[in-house]
């Protein structure tokens, strides 16, 4: 057990999950580069530890809301990469029958209430999910991810305040990856720590190293526990970095190659693998094998997606109304 409450199984599984996320993102990039995708995408390579650490702290029945950069969240929450990939390619077998695409992957039955194309758009919804749990006297919690840029939207403010006054079981996870598209976080706000904004609502805020899956897991577990016990919401800021451009086409003129390399040197997967090996929970070969298996799983997902049927245009109007 590498941190309090984490089983060996889960400790190992976290590494596997991070590999799958990385493999998914790399393949997505590749598919895009080869012109196989009509649409856009936002990759989370570099941020795997946040999704993985947070989602490992959840249990069945909990809810999750994600962002435009949501592949990792869904995978970490147990979504099927085949149906994700099919959605990415716009196929009928995808999670959204090809209607949603990368920015709207959802698995409503499993409590994944959707990626969201609107920056901070998920925060009010998550607050409502928290209200719903609260009113039904449930013991679930709701996690919502959002970026550093999203923390400047009015929806952030209104949502955290509401969750605070109503003591809702919502964990607001800010993935501070240093940029909102091209805007550096220190240009978009004049404070050092986004977590400090929690004080404006009278709720706990914590900043963690988002490149360290154990640190994320640990902080998330405490926040989840507090929420489950009726202790209300938490703002959890995870310091991380996106390796790729913002979306499909991004010349990245707003940052330097050196900066990227500095962060890559702290790669969450490499670091964690080393740690597990050092702790004797893993042999060095295991790590390579996980990476390979992850790529195989994604290969399989791509095969599934590519061999899946396109939606029938005659079904265009399906699902507008219940």
């Amino acid at each position, binding site marked *: 057990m590498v941190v309090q409450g984490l089983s060996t199984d889960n400790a190992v599984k976290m590494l596997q999950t991070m590999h799958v996320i990385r493999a998914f993102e790399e393949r997505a990039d590749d598919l895009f580069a080869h012109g196989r995708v009509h649409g856009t995408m936002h990759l989370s390579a570099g941020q795997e530890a946040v999704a993985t650490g947070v989602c490992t702290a959840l249990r069945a029945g909990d809810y999750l809301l994600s962002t435009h950069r949501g592949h990792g969240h869904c995978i970490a929450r147990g979504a099927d990469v085949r149906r994700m990939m099919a959605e990415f390619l716009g196929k009928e077998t*995808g999670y959204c029958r090809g209607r*949603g695409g990368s920015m709207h992957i959802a698995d409503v039955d499993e409590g994944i209430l*959707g990626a969201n194309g609107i920056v901070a758009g998920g925060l*009010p*919804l998550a607050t*409502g*999910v928290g209200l719903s749990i609260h009113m039904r006297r449930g013991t679930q919690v709701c996690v919502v991810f959002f970026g550093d840029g999203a923390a400047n939207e009015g929806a952030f403010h209104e949502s955290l305040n509401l969750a605070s006054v109503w003591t809702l079981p919502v964990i607001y996870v800010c993935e501070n990856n240093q940029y909102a598209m091209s805007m550096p976080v220190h240009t978009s706000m004049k404070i050092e720590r986004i977590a400090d904004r929690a004080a404006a609502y009278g709720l706990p805020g914590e900043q963690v190293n988002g490149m360290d899956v154990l640190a994320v897991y640990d902080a998330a577990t405490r926040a989840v526990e507090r929420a489950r016990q009726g202790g209300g919401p938490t703002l959890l800021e995870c310091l991380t970095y996106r390796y790729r451009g913002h979306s499909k086409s991004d010349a990245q003129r707003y940052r330097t190659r050196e900066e990227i390399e500095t962060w890559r040197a702290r790669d969450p997967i490499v670091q964690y693998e080393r740690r597990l090996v050092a702790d004797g929970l893993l042999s060095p070969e295991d790590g390579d094998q996980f990476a390979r298996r992850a790529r195989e799983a994604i290969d399989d997902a791509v095969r599934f997606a590519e061999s899946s049927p396109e939606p029938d245009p005659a079904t265009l109007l399906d*699902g507008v*109304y219940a």
Partner: protein
Amino acid sequence: MIRELSYAEAVREALRQEMQADERVFILGEDIGVYGGAFGVTDGLLAEFGPERIRDTPISEAAITGCAIGAAVTGLRPVLEIQFSDFITLAMEQLVLQAAKLRYMFGGKARVPMVVRTPGGSGTGAAAQHSESLEAWFAHVPGLKVVAPSTPADAKGLLISSIRDDNPVIFFEHKLLYRTRGPVPEETAAIPLGLADVKREGADATIVATSGMVTRALGAADRLAQDGVSVEVIDPRTLRPLDTDTILASVRKTGRVVIVYEAVKTLGIGAEIAARIAESEALYSLQAPIVRLGGQECPIPYNRALERAAVPQQEDIVAAVRQVLAA
């Protein structure tokens, strides 16, 4: 004889009965608890249902709308009060990009059974930021339903249907109607969404009127009847989906149409109604160009006389009917 209620009481009765029947139904909004709502509609409900289900909120229109959506998606049936329909401008993203589209974007998966009740319209001297009639915006949005009752009975019956509907419904009440009275059944009789009501039958001309304009249209019809003119008055009641058939049938019968609505004329609901007539075979029945009477192309002014001049009045409707009859 059926007892009479005011429009506000009819709304309240629908809320109360649905809350009694279904514990998933709850209300949230600003000042709906001890205050009873800015127009008194939720008065007394706090005492009956308590602060959990009659939930006063901070002033945060976007987030409370999101709260309703999130609660709806996870199994509750929220009824959100937006204090004046103007303030819905603060919740457009949540209503239009989230509530209306979630189900579709998710491949037909989630349900969003929620109602947004909100008072619209002018006539109270509340000026430009408290007098909007914005229903046409929402009627433009697939995934939403839009309701605008004109009588106490319709208010009750349509609100019941709206609460029971599994889709987001924007329910426009009208400030000037709250105190109007009319017969309302005691039982929880739902009136289906999407059905127009012929408020008065007639043979010479058709008036299609919505919300607060229905009373004025009926007044105009009375006035015209004195001159032997027989006017049919149709209230669509639901603006999305719009009951085109009932309207077209009347047009085919009378061949003369006046459309009356309070919202700004350009691109108000009357634009769609006129367009549906013009693109149907009913076009061939028209004996005169359609006349639309909508709000003037200006914000609603404060001064009483100006405010009155800004939206159609009964005498304008009478004149418009005479115009289509003269053509």
